[in-house]
């Protein structure tokens, strides 16, 4: 897949960086290019990735204090006057604290407000369950007109930031505070709403987002040693979901695993299951994520292991859906014979 310009994760030392940093570089580049952006933060510029932006463009930075609800409403007002707004705070505050205001003013008015959940997923590590946002993708995805993006790494985070500025309606983008592997390069294509196939294969497909794309690529590599050809798709845009790629994966490989660093309820897995249940023939799916519970304190890598979000977990999920696929094939085979 040379045309994807991916980092060869099997042969080179994989570098890591917090996706928050890519967000910050995107913001700075937007301002340098003269886009009329205003970056808002609720007293978290130090950690959320807007600190450097604040230094470079103090006039374009607005710290609203610990007033997340007011931040969303003020953003709506600024957007009504044509400003391109980027709001940053912890993922669960960004998506949860002011959900009604995001819904009733920003989304209802289809306003160009980009809501950026920093430190999302398990990436705030040591802070534990109250801070870790595992539900943000699900609650943002239900809002009419909301685009939801989970970038794979810091390089894609910058591209997603630049792209969000051009989307006229509301966007939720999720970033990580923890260092995560860099798997893409400036050459890797990125288009909102278009999932990208990072590895071909016909036996099963892993649809992943965020840091789980890296784990998915490693899992596919492990499974290759067992003789299985596993397709890996970066589903960075959870909404609108790329139905064409998801359907093709279902039809061509017949077994799907989704992988995300968030709740198994209503996130990428939910979106894929909803889509497939209503379109092509039902396909065995296994949703890898965190199952209806809060996070807890620990190092990010530790937590990924603890919650079953590693390449090994994905690989066993692939074996499981493949077994279901085979079971179904022999069932339909015997039905045909009988």
């Amino acid at each position, binding site marked *: 897949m040379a045309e994807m310009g991916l980092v060869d994760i099997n042969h080179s030392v994989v570098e890591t960086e917090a996706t928050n940093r890519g967000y910050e570089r995107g913001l700075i580049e937007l301002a340098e290019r003269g886009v009329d952006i205003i970056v808002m933060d609720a007293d978290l510029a130090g950690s959320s990735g807007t600190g450097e932006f604040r230094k470079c463009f103090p006039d374009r930075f607005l710290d609203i204090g610990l007033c997340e609800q*007011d931040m969303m409403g003020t953003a709506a007002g600024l957007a*009504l006057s044509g400003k391109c707004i980027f709001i940053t705070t912890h993922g669960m505050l960004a998506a949860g604290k002011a959900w009604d205001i995001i819904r009733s003013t920003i989304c209802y008015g289809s306003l160009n407000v980009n809501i950026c959940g920093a430190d999302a997923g398990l990436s705030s590590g040591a802070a534990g369950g109250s801070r870790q946002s595992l539900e943000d993708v699900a609650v943002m995805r239900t809002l009419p007109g909301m685009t939801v993006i989970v970038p794979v790494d810091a390089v894609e985070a910058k591209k997603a930031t630049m792209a969000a500025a051009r989307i006229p309606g509301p966007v939720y983008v999720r970033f990580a505070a923890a260092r995560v592997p860099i798997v893409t390069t400036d050459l890797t294509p990125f288009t909102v709403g278009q999932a990208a196939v990072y590895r071909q294969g016909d036996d099963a497909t892993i649809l992943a987002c965020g840091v789980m794309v890296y784990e998915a690529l490693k899992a596919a590599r492990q499974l290759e040693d067992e003789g299985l050809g596993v397709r890996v798709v970066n589903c960075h845009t959870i909404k609108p979901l790329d139905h064409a790629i998801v359907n093709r994966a279902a039809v061509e490989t017949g077994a799907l695993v989704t992988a995300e660093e968030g709740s198994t309820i209503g996130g990428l897995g939910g979106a894929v299951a909803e889509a497939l249940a209503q379109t092509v023939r039902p396909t065995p799916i296994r949703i890898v994520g965190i199952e209806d519970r809060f996070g807890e304190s620990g190092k990010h890598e530790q937590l990924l292991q603890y919650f079953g979000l590693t390449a090994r977990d994905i690989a066993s999920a692939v074996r499981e859906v493949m077994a279901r696929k085979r079971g179904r094939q022999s069932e339909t085979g015997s039905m045909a014979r009988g």
Partner: protein
Amino acid sequence: MSPTPNELRDIAKIIRRDVLTMILESGSGHVGGSLSAADILTALYWGGMRVNPEMPQWEDRDRFVLSKAHASPALYAALARRGYFDVKELMTFRKHKSMLQGFPDMQRTPGIDASVGSPGQGLSITNGIAMAAKRDEKTFRVYCLMGDGEAHEGQVWEAAMTAAHHGLDNVCAIMDRNMMMGDGSTEDIVALSPLVDKWRTFNWHVIEVDGHNIDQILAACSEAGTVKGRPTLVHARTVKGKGVPFMENKPEWHDRKVTEELYEEAMKALS
């Protein structure tokens, strides 16, 4: 040519009559809070604000945010009577495919500057518009109409701090102080008094008016325009259900269907 005080009073009465007819026709809607705001809206749209109904998107118009969004019938009536759209549209209020949704929707109704729904959110939006105006060196002013019960929402006070902190002297918020909310009196449920003092300690310039005296409201809007470095709160003492004696100060008329019989009685009071 600006309307005379008598003409203004007549316009407010027409708006009240429209409100009743709309709610009779739709079978639901917020009567009490609409009647209480009718004079304030008349003052704003007939002199208080710089607007042009022929150009609802005119860049330099004053902006209006109906934070007490449930008073939408009164706002729609004011917009229709001011010429933003055909008065006949009022009869479609709350009906399927109407341009007049239950709560203001800027994507459907000419003259609506911001979509609003839940109480407590409008002042933040107002501040955002006002900040953008300052950044763009625009001189238009931004008005916001709030309910008093609405001031129970914490976001109102977040926004109050933001407006004062940023010296948004282009913001003029009007509080429809009718002492009533949905279930009863604000002072019985969770007391807001002393409300004027609250706004003053939040560093707002406060003007107290009789919210049914259009002259006083207009004078307050002018005064607010001269204040530098601080936002203005017009504390408008009002009566919920104003103009229809059997609805006045009756919380049960916050949101209630109007029957034919009571409609006739109400219209008589407003004739």
